[in-house]
């Protein structure tokens, strides 16, 4: 490291101490003593910063080192068939940085070169085909922003408040701008004869788990994308490089990574991932299957257990994200009293189709306790339910598809906790 950088770090540390000393007057209209961060020339205002050749591909600045994926060891038997969590508590806007976007693998993140990549289409088609990666880049492309939410997101919360942080309760989600080829274009190339009604595609990955899933042909011909770019660049290894399936609005398990084969069938395969897993057991012991769509959902990301209020009473930005697999979010309401009363939040932009939307409630905090909740509504008129409403229909054993209203108990010291309320 260059001397100038060491010098900058010393300056930062000195600045931190000064800032801490001034904390008692934070928020006051007038400072008692001049702020040395202003009155003294800082190293960064005098010396030199980093050259343009230092970092060909950058990572976040070290002060953001807490904005990372987190693993919860006890959730799974090992880390290979497991899950980690997007730091949604610390993010804003809607686009998830790929480097901290959650991962869910069933046999690990594999390394598959573009040169080694093959995609097969077979089954009930006129011409079974094999594509190389280079072939895929020659099809007309589309760009769309969509959320990918694991079916198990919030699944640990069915029986009660368990994990203390939005990252852990709601972080099995990311939202990216995908570039790819409509699956319909590839199927068209292979040729579909006869009726499409009642037919299915079976999609599987190149990894050992294969993660095979059955999708009705109607959905495959609608908006499913075969994607090779996300947020402008190639997919990350852990997100399916070089090619993954994007299944807008539907549970993340169906977004097959390292996509290697698409088979047209006259029946579903009823694979492991749609029988043993991703089926939702109800209170009477029967189970729903083919629960593909992710229903409307929201969560307040700040304040939240990992994002306590540190600035004291006064202006407070309550923010969060909402999404629905049924189309667009039209409204998000926020409650500060555990659902007794609600006020409508501001959507920072029009809700995208099957994409995250950011909401803000610009409010004034009196320093009292709050029971913060958000409640999303989508264009079909669906209103995000409470956990009680969900449990009344499903019981506590369905594991997947928990889109309940989340409550954060914000105490007068600004600390927030994951709670359930009556």
């Amino acid at each position, binding site marked *: 490291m260059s001397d100038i950088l060491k010098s900058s770090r010393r300056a930062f540390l000195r600045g931190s101490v000064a800032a801490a000393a001034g904390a008692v007057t934070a928020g006051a209209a007038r400072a008692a003593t001049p702020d040395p961060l202003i009155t003294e020339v800082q190293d960064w205002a005098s010396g030199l910063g980093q050259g343009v050749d230092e970092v060909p591909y950058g990572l976040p600045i070290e002060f953001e*080192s*807490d904005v*990372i994926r*987190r693993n*919860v060891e006890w959730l799974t*038997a090992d880390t290979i*068939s497991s899950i980690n969590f997007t730091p949604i508590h610390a993010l804003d806007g809607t686009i998830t940085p790929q480097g901290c976007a959650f991962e869910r693998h*069933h*046999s690990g993140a594999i390394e598959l070169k573009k040169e080694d990549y093959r995609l*097969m*289409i*077979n089954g009930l088609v006129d011409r*079974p*085909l*094999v594509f190389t990666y280079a072939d895929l880049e*020659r099809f007309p492309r589309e760009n769309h922003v969509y959320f990918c939410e694991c079916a198990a997101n919030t699944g640990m919360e069915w029986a009660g*408040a*368990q*994990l*203390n*942080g939005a990252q*852990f309760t709601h972080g099995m989600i990311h939202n990216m701008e995908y570039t790819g080829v409509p699956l*319909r274009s590839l199927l*068209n190339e292979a040729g579909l004869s006869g009726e499409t009604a009642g037919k299915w595609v*079976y999609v599987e990955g190149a990894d*050992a*788990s294969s993660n*095979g899933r059955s999708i009705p042909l109607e959905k495959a011909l609608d908006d499913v994308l075969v994607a090779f770019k996300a947020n402008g660049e190639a997919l990350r290894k852990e997100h399916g490089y070089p090619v993954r399936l994007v299944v807008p609005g539907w549970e993340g398990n169906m977004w097959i990574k390292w996509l290697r*084969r698409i*088979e047209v069938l006259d*029946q579903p*395969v*009823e694979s492991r991932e749609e*029988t*043993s897993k991703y*089926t939702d057991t109800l*209170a*009477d012991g029967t189970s*729903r*299957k*083919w*629960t593909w769509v992710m*229903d409307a959902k929201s969560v307040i990301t700040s304040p939240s257990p990992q994002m306590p209020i540190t600035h004291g009473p006064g202006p407070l930005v309550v923010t969060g994200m909402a999404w629905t697999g049924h189309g667009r979010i039209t409204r998000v*309401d926020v409650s500060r*009293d555990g659902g*007794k*009363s*609600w006020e409508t939040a501001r959507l920072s932009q029009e809700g995208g189709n099957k994409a995250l939307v950011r909401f803000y409630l610009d409010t004034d905090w009196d320093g009292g306790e709050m*029971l913060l909740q958000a409640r999303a509504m989508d264009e*079909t*008129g*669906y*209103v995000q*339910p409470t956990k009680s409403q969900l449990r009344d*229909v499903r019981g506590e*054993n369905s594991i997947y598809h928990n889109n309940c209203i989340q409550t954060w*108990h914000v105490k007068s010291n600004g600390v927030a906790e994951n*709670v359930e*309320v*009556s």
Partner: protein
Amino acid sequence: GLTDSRLGLGRPALEAEIAAWDVDILPDGTGLPEGSGDVWTGEEVFAEQCAACHGDFAEGVGNWPTLAGGWDTLDRKDPVKTVGSYWPYLSTVWDYVHRSMPFGAAQTLSDDEVYAITAYILYSNDIVDEDFTLSHENFLEVEMPNAAGFIVDDRAEAEYAQWRAEPCMENCKDSVEITMRATVLDVTPDQAGAA
């Protein structure tokens, strides 16, 4: 919808290529290769290839999946979902074991070994007797206990119909009590460890 225009991209898939990759088995048995395996052979193969994680009797080790038992638990708290108590189709067992097991060395089992392991898992679940031999010919005769235990997604009727209504905004409830706290469980990873 589909059009008549094609770009002419890709090339025909060869029979051998399709055979190598298209190994899925359907509930009606489509895709099953010829072959067979009995419970005793299955026990041997299972002990060698599977028991380290799934237990000698398919009962599961540690946090690894339990493959046997759990009957009549689906409507109770913490149901035990196994091949015997939960899985609707035997085809899925054959397909998944053949394609994705053992964990870390998938696609190393022969067809007959998969038949034998499948027979042993059935035996572990008391679905067949110890002298049972499973083959492509009698595969569909096996009755899976929870075959009728699944319904197609009914949220449209059971949920959407009642939850698509203008929600309450004021005086929605008389009182609000905290009924559960995550910090009581204290199972969240330590945030201070982040770096």
